[in-house]
């Protein structure tokens, strides 16, 4: 098990538990009572820690090395999944995966950022940081979904679009902008869920949808707390403050009206019970798609654009304060 810094008290209890279990295995003494007591302590402490997580702690959880990534959810949720590759222009981006999937008898197109599960795979997946070809592959698949009238499911989990020389040469900005422009007009339902990190343009590049949800221990922001700290505080040391100031938690995002709902995670985070998390995600996706399928394509597009049209917060002169959403 991997423990984050704020989980240290938990780690201590787990260590105690291990020791007691060892003693128990040696025979002689009956330890079942102490084990029970410790397990109860652990469960209470976990509840206590997790009932009041800070912004930065959610950022840490969203990056937990054992956290499930897109492909895990895709393989668990869908009966069938055929991965499709390539943007038909340049390359196949490994940081974004996508393909046709069967959601309890109905076809959907699923697209998601993908991080690697170990050091080698993390490099292979470029740490979930997509290049322009990733966004173009996503768009190609979304256009196909539209043609065959399949709903689109997007899973968001990226520390940002890749900032590299080649990415700039091939138009990282254009690729993201084009996706936003095209996704606004797609005539099929788009359901997005932030399953980990939701950093900036890299996230929203596949994140404009009729419904956008966030899992409980994730974040969504215009910039990562580290970069924000380095730019505004001119030092990397203020990431905790930046995480608070950015109000990047699902609870804030929901209060602001920028997302449509929060998916509760198993206590301790999605990685403690990935199968259960997948079930929750699946249930939510199905519900959203079935609601959105009621709408005509025109109404769907209008509602989508109006939703984003209303996002913004400003005052009007003559001291009348308006909040557009």
């Amino acid at each position, binding site marked *: 098990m991997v423990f984050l810094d704020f989980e240290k008290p938990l780690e201590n209890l787990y260590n105690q538990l291990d020791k007691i279990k060892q003693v128990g295995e040696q025979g002689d003494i009956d330890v079942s009572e102490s084990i029970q007591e410790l397990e109860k302590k652990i469960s209470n402490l976990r509840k206590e820690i997790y009932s009041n997580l800070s912004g930065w702690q959610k950022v840490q959880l969203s990056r937990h090395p054992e956290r499930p990534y897109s492909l895990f959810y895709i393989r668990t949720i869908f009966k069938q999944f055929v991965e499709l590759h390539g943007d038909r222009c340049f390359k196949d981006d490994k940081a974004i995966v996508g393909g046709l999937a069967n959601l309890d008898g109905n076809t959907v197109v699923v697209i998601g950022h993908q991080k690697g599960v170990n050091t080698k795979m993390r490099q292979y997946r470029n740490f979930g940081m997509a290049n322009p070809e990733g966004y173009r592959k996503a768009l190609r698949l979304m256009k196909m979904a539209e043609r065959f009238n399949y709903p689109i499911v997007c899973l968001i989990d990226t520390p940002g679009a890749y900032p590299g020389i080649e990415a700039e040469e091939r*138009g990282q900005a254009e690729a993201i902008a084009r996706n936003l422009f095209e996704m606004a007009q797609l005539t099929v339902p788009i359901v997005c869920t932030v399953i980990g990190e939701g950093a900036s343009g890299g996230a929203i590049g596949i994140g404009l949808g009729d419904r956008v949800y966030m899992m409980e221990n994730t974040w969504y922001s215009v910039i990562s707390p580290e970069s924000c700290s380095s730019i505004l505080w001119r030092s990397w040391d203020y990431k905790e403050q930046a995480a608070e100031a950015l109000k990047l938690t699902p609870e804030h*995002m929901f209060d602001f009206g920028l997302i449509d709902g929060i998916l509760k995670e198993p206590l301790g985070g999605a990685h403690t019970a990935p199968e259960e998390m997948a079930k929750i995600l699946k249930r939510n996706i199905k519900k959203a798609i079935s609601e959105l399928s009621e709408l005509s394509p025109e109404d769907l597009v209008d509602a*989508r654009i109006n939703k984003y049209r209303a996002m913004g917060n400003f005052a*009007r002169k003559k001291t009348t304060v308006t909040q557009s959403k």
Partner: protein
Amino acid sequence: MGWFKRLKDGIITSTKDKKEAPDGLWYKCERCKEASTQKEVKENFHKCPKCNYHIRIGSHDYFELLYDNGKFFELFTDLLAEDFLEFTDLKPYDQRLEKAREKTNLDDAITVGIGKVAKKPLVIAAMDFTFIGGSMGSVVGEKIALAIDYCIDNKTPFMIISKSGGARMMESAFSLMQMAKTSAKLSQLAKKRIPYFSFLTDPTTGGVTASFAMLGDINFAEPEALIGFAGPRVIKETIKRDLPEGFQTSEFLMEHGFLDFIVDRQDLKAKIAELLCFF
């Protein structure tokens, strides 16, 4: 023979490296360091008369250059940014706003005008870098959305002059959503077959490039402007090597297929007038 020997030869600083020029009368070029009078610079379309460096100018300077006789109406003047997140880094956001308003005499980083360019109506939304780095927050997004509605209602072509560091961090996710909002609105404009010109000036980066700035029916830029998604410093830190010369300039973007042309500021009005004839 004198009693003293001169060790250094007179004044060795050449005139062009001389610091401090009195304000108001003289302009010292940031690039070639040559001095010219303010009058010369203004008459030269706010470019250095010696090296043609395009000096960064504001929304009202562009309006004056582009609209016939410098005449235009400003639209949507009642919007004000607000510190609704109570965002504080080294300084509270509301103080930054106040200071920016005082310094620039502007309400926010974008100004929308309607007027005629070579007798044809055009709505121009021009950004001001001097207002918190031309950053895009809720007000910028809303003004662009309103301008697009205006263009749809009046069947008027639309142009944005981008000059921005990107999304405004102090409005966090709200700023991010302006990328989606402006792009979605532009898709409506496109559906109505109303032309949109995107004019990119120094600098245009981040969330602004990754939304409306790259979405023009026609994209064009001033010479040698910095245009990119990630800032050069971020890329350098990520890849840990030096960036090639000319990286992320207008010329670089044109070479890679993202701009239709590059236009010198003195030809800008004629070029736009020419474009408008086709629509």
